[in-house]
């Protein structure tokens, strides 16, 4: 089972990288031009050639690809053109910041989403349900960066409750930054990101709750004389949890996408910021690095979802045991 997983991951990564190379080769962005930027009239043709040579951009694409692959095999992700640093260093530094933001947002959206979904589903058609659904539809159709700017204007500028951006206080040395103020800077971006995530989870959970309440076991429970409250609390959550958890872990990819925009607005120094820069400025090593990393991240999300199934669903645990037993029989034969 794990061998199969690993194989799938490897083939996925190879396909992804090949596809990325293909896209980059078709991309109209000239990396030298992107690197030179506004100085394009002060950099001579000779200097452009020197830049190409320095970064190995004048070799044909297959050569560059081969060079990149062989370096990767040795664990060398290359040097980022825009940061002039090893790609892995950039990713490590950026990911630490992103991870905190994404996990906070993820936990918030998961908890709030399931709670709202449960409440709305339990009283579907009511005022609360209509309010929640209205909220979800509005949020789901709101562009992330616009929502981020709105949150920024309201909470940071008008109300002044939270800082306008960054992950640390302005002008304060790292040694003097308290955990408290780090959290303070995390609030707005995490709130924005979780607001985006809540919509999906809520609508999905609500749907499952409605289904559960119309199921035969709910009818049976009612027939036994159980109160509505007891059904909602005792029967529904367990049945709704599994699909909701799948969705929650599958939302890693959306989380990753959303963080790109949110980080840009809030000047939050995460991986999203770096990804956008690398794509816009033709920094192939960094872009490929983030692509691989992003894929691993999403893959890890799905893997975690499977692991959590085992924890919360006895049926899957049982299935797994049977499968393993059968598998070992086959091997024995």
């Amino acid at each position, binding site marked *: 089972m794990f061998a199969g997983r690993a194989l799938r991951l490897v083939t996925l990564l190879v396909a992804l990288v090949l596809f990325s190379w293909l896209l980059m080769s078709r991309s*109209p*962005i*000239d990396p030298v*031009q992107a*690197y030179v*930027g*506004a*100085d*394009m*009239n*002060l*950099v*001579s043709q000779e*200097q*452009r050639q*020197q830049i190409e*040579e320095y970064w190995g951009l004048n070799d044909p694409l297959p050569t560059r690809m081969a060079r990149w692959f062989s370096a990767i095999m040795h664990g060398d992700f290359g040097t980022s053109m*825009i*940061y*002039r*640093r090893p790609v892995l260093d950039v990713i490590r*530094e*950026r990911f630490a910041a992103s991870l905190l933001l994404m996990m906070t947002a993820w936990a918030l959206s998961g908890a*709030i989403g399931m709670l709202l979904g449960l*409440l709305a589903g339990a*009283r*579907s058609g*009511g*005022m*609360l349900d209509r*309010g929640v659904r209205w909220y979800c539809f509005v949020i789901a159709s709101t562009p992330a960066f616009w929502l981020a*700017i709105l949150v*920024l*204007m309201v*909470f*940071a*500028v008008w*109300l*002044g*409750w*939270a800082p*306008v*951006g*960054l992950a640390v*206080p*302005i*002008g*304060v*040395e790292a040694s003097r930054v308290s955990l*408290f*103020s780090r959290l*303070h800077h995390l*609030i707005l971006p995490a709130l924005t990101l979780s607001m985006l995530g809540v919509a999906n989870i809520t609508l999905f959970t609500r749907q499952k709750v409605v289904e559960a*309440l119309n199921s035969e076991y709910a009818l049976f429970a009612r027939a036994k004389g159980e109160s509505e409250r007891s059904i909602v609390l005792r029967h529904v959550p367990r049945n709704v949890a599994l699909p909701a958890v799948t969705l929650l872990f599958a939302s890693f990819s959306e989380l990753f996408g959303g963080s790109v925009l949110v980080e*840009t*607005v809030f*000047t939050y*120094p995460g991986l999203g910021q*770096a990804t956008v*820069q690398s794509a816009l400025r033709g920094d192939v090593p960094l872009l490929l690095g983030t692509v691989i990393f992003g894929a691993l991240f999403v893959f890890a999300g799905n893997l975690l979802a499977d692991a959590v199934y085992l924890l919360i669903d006895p049926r899957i645990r049982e299935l797994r045991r049977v499968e393993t037993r059968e598998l070992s029989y086959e091997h024995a034969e």
Partner: protein
Amino acid sequence: MTGTDGSRMWRWAAALAPLLLFALLASLFAGCGGKGASTGGGEKRDELVVALGGEREEGYDPTTGWGRYGSPLFQSTLLARDDDLEIVNDLARAYEISEDGLTYTVRIRDDVKFSDGRPLTAEDVVYTYETAAKSGSVVDLNVLEKVVAEDDRTVVFTLKEPMTTFVNLLITMGIVPKHAHGDDYAYNPIGSGPYKMVQWDRGQQMIVEANPLYYGKKPYFKRITFLFLEEDAAFAAARAGEVDMAVVPHTLAANSVPGMRLLRVPSVDNRGICFPCVPAGSSDEEGNPVGNDVTGDMAIRKAVNMAVDRKALVEGVLKGFGSPAYTICDNLPWWNPETVVKDADLEGAKKVLEEGGWKDADGDGIVEKGALKASFTLIYPSSDQTRQSLAMAAADMAKKVGIEMKVEGKSWDDIERLMHSNAVLFGWGSHTPMEMYNVYHGKFRGEGWYNANYYHNPGVDAYMDRALAAGSEEESLEHWKKAQWDGETGLSARGDAPWAWLVNLDHCYFVNEKLDTGKNRIEPHGHGWPITANIVDWRWKD
């Protein structure tokens, strides 16, 4: 399952609970966070927080291109420009250029120390230039044959060919210490500049502190924090009172921010129309078409130059935050003021067209010359709204004299293919006449973004060649001016009119009312960092 039990109020409260919780938490936090700058109110301060954008991701190493605009901050340069853009000594005590213009001999001060206490010697200068030449970066040192230290205090640069604009490299290249220039230099720069780095939170902010060993004028502000915010975030930070200075696009400049004034700095950040100057029919090495029969006619180019109302463009498109542009280098030392043409001169434009053989024979409002209609495409980069508005407004103005410019937005990559055969709305502007040389010299026809319109006038080329070989920048000025207009011909609108320059943008900043930024220089293309050029003169008003 409509709700009949439980109160509705309660359910609403449940929905609002997360929001309320957040509000409560946030207000708790608000009391303790590092509140930014402007809360200081009236009293004197020696710390600043500014949002000028433009983080340098690859770090603050001059040998890979840091410090070519604004203040090099951590390092210092051999020469510098003063507020009037005249060349003055900095690290150099004196410099001389040989008769043939090939050798620059620079004598440096002997009292300069790097911020780590070690002295700065000629060796460091040589090391800096040699490293930069090999760095594969935007620092272009191809003209440099060699650089040697004659003794501890004397550096001799030898060029492959005379080039008066080489002096700009002496002005912009910060000197790095040979003994401390390792792999992580760009993140922990050590130099002889007015400030030293305290901390750089990448992607967020940089904190700097006055360098006590700095040999020049002591800066007033002891500590400055640079925030690397996007335009929207910088504006929000200004509104929230967290910064003393924020860069602002002219589209937002009309807003007012309490406690802040609007600072408008003139620039040579210009926008103009580049006309293909040769007839259609040929193509470049990559097979892109070259030339345009309509704009290849000088009468058309001159007529557009006369017909546009630059003041109206400044008022209408830039909301007043700009000035009319007549050349690529307005108001810089090498600019020729005689190049200013009369604006919105419809009669003059019509006359030029008539003399050129263009008239509206079929009465459709567009002039013709034989079978050729005075109609061509004007391309702007579709990502830039200001350029779009300028292109559309200029097209309306040209229409009044019977010239049709069809306005189209394209990506930069399309523009690269189309720019030899269509008019394009470009922008340049730099603190070196090298730019004029690159854009107008015949030898760069079709070479990359340089002379994109294939302009060629041997007389103009000769003036510019003479300017490069003149000996010093001062002596070269006269030749640069003559290249623009010598009384008979030139590269400006009075001469061959290969371009129609339209406007120079003003660079706008919101600045704390109490902050005095001294005399700001005309800024080059690039809005933000250049304002730091005179950062040591900034002070708090009493």
